[in-house]
């Protein structure tokens, strides 16, 4: 359990202090007191009475990671994940703030549901949890939710994720109305009609495996629609889980036209291609699907040139009995909170990104785009922090993830980058040495 005493005081000795929001990258110590960063740099190492001294071994201290797209499944699907297990999973992956999607049961289309989620998360007291409200009542694509009340209750954005916002007209109204509260409308861009029951990327692998394909156009058609609709409103459109080269191109062009659009991608889209379906089966099944190598490289390019604003996980837990099925019938989605940072570090090792840019994409930028609190490594800054060993190798999901589920194509893969500790408001909410596996 997290420590709850008011004197949460820690001294992190010999660490690399890295904060992309202020171009900070130096060695030194960091002192946490009363939920804040009390000092950084060449501090005097305390002898006693100032809380535990933690040997940093040159590991990185950075603002805690922020995920704008996760599914914690509570209420309704607690056998897949709960707010408690999702929170544990998050902090063990270095996340201090997580936005949770509305496709629960009941759907988060009512302030009561939102308040319940927040209350539960507060009781658990690990990461900060920010609900995302539904765009339409029951995710049915018909009636706009009471966005004002949802925002008052604590929703930080609106999405029918799992489904696209069904019609152009509903999207237009949602963008117009939500603009009043400064909250983004987040769209899962997919033309379901074009997907036509597809279960993986349309391409050679699908041809060979005899599985029905989802074409790239399925995503791009709706990204185009959304951008054209956005142009007619003052809203903020956020595009979830970008996966195709064409969609990256569309967003790049829209940004050139100064549209108020942000976009995320997920670690799997820059780490894997549809080839992964051959050996990982349903653990490599998600929507949008893993695409071609050309798409993967375009996603990385989008991260490099700022077209894609942030990395989100689309953490989507499903129970083993649901994934242990015919590929056609298994549900879409993989878990991602515990592997995201490591997969980002793989990109850094491959020279595609530098560590500062990666951390910007995983903390500073998503927090700014969604108006969320974030850690800052400066005196008086909020002590939402992650301490990680960028070179530490580990075997993903062995013996087990902290998530209640284990549907990940990265399970068993040796990855670099090991989260050692996570602090939220100066409280140590995760410590690898205390048996987090």
């Amino acid at each position, binding site marked *: 359990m997290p420590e709850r005493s008011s004197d949460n005081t820690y001294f992190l000795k010999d660490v690399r202090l890295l904060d992309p929001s202020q171009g900070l990258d130096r060695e030194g110590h960091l002192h946490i007191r009363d939920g804040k960063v009390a000092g950084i740099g060449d501090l005097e190492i305390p002898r006693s009475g100032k809380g535990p001294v933690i040997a940093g071994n040159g590991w990185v201290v950075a603002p805690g990671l922020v995920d704008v797209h996760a599914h914690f499944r509570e209420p309704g699907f607690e056998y897949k994940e709960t707010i408690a297990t999702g929170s544990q999973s998050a902090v063990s992956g270095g996340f201090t703030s997580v936005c949770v999607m509305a496709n629960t049961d009941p759907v988060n289309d009512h302030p009561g549901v939102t308040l319940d989620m927040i209350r539960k998360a507060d009781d658990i007291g690990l990461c900060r949890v920010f609900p995302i409200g539904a765009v339409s009542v029951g995710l049915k694509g018909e009636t706009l939710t009471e966005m004002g009340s949802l925002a008052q209750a604590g929703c930080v954005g609106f999405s029918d994720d799992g489904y696209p916002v069904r019609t152009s007209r509903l999207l237009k109204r949602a963008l117009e109305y939500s603009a009043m509260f400064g909250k983004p409308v987040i769209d899962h861009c997919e033309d379901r009609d074009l997907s036509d029951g597809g279960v993986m990327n*349309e*391409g*050679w692998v*699908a*041809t*060979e*495996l*005899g*599985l*029905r394909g989802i074409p790239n156009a399925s995503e791009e058609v709706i990204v185009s629609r959304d951008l054209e609709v956005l142009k007619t409103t003052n809203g903020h459109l956020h595009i979830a889980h970008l996966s195709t080269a064409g969609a990256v191109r569309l967003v790049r062009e829209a940004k050139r036209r100064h549209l108020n659009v942000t976009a995320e991608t997920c670690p799997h889209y820059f780490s894997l291609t549809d080839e992964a379906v051959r050996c990982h*089966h349903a653990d490599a099944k998600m929507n949008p699907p893993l695409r071609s190598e050309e798409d993967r490289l375009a996603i990385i390019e989008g991260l490099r040139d700022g077209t894609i604003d942030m990395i989100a996980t689309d953490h989507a837990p499903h129970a083993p*009995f649901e994934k*242990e*099925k*015919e*590929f*056609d*019938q298994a549900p879409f989605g993989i878990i991602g909170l515990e592997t995201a940072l490591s997969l980002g570090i793989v990109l850094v090792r491959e020279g595609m990104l530098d560590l500062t840019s990666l951390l910007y994409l995983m903390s500073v930028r998503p927090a700014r785009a969604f108006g969320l609190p974030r850690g800052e490594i400066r005196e008086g800054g909020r002590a939402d922090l992650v301490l990680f060993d960028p070179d530490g190798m580990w075997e993903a999901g062995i013996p087990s993830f902290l998530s209640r589920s284990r549907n990940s194509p990265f399970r068993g893969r040796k990855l670099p980058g090991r989260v050692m500790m996570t602090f939220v408001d100066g409280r140590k909410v995760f410590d690898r040495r205390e048996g987090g596996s």
Partner: protein
Amino acid sequence: MDALRTPHLLTVSDLTPGEMEGIFRTADSFLDLSSRTVKKVPSLRGKTVVNLFYEPSTRTRTSFEIAAKRLSADVINITTSQSSVVKGESLLDTVRTIEALGADGVVIRHPASGVPEWISRRVGCHVINAGDGLHEHPTQALLDLFTIQKRKGRLKGLRVAIVGDILHSRVARSNIRAMSLMGISVRLVGPPTLIPKDRGDWNAEVFHDLREGISDCDVVMALRLQLERATANYIPSLKEYAKFYGISPSVLQSARPDVLVLHPGPINRGIEIQDEEGFREHSGILDQVHFGVGIRMAVLYLLMAGGNKGEGNA
């Protein structure tokens, strides 16, 4: 005997050209047997073969059943309608069933691609794919090639046109692989809606015009058209499909004079095959049924008679 390296037959890619020839030789020797009065051999005595069919297919199931019985195996048929799959009978239950029955070999037909492979990783017996979704139907390809070899005397250097719904055909997928392996050049003929755009390392030329596609071909293989393709707009109507892609005596004029016509069955007469009487001497369709039993005996025998149970992969 021409042993196989693989404990299972899941896709044609599990086999080498040499192994395929071995299967043909073995099938030949079993076919000699079927012309005798006592048709049984004791090769699989004491072994249990489970035919697990999640899709109705009297032809394939019967063919496997006869094959297993001629090898003296005990045969258990389990035919489950598609509805019980929809109702959520889990594949793990299927695995438990196979184990409870003490199967030495299981023959699986399933509407979802990849299921035989999935099962093979979880059971300790031999698994034979009798058709999975849109994926593969390896014994069909083997019997097609065997029929071609019997009728043409060779495989290498022949030219074959596969006509119809390639996109949704496991028969086509297995045949394209098997034919390429055996040195046959393959053409795919059909409307663009029914031919996959991404063909990777399939070494096949694509034609949309039937006469052009079958010109100079030694073999024309017509595929069964699922009638629902018209309602899903893959084709405008069955009538138009029949007009553009139906195999008839007059169309066959464009192929080689000694062309052989194959069809995996069951045939939609008047659609993909028209006026069969008019090209009776070119048809290999009855041979396919006859040779099917020999091929399935050979596959069961070569996988199962050696005494290995196919563990290692379990």
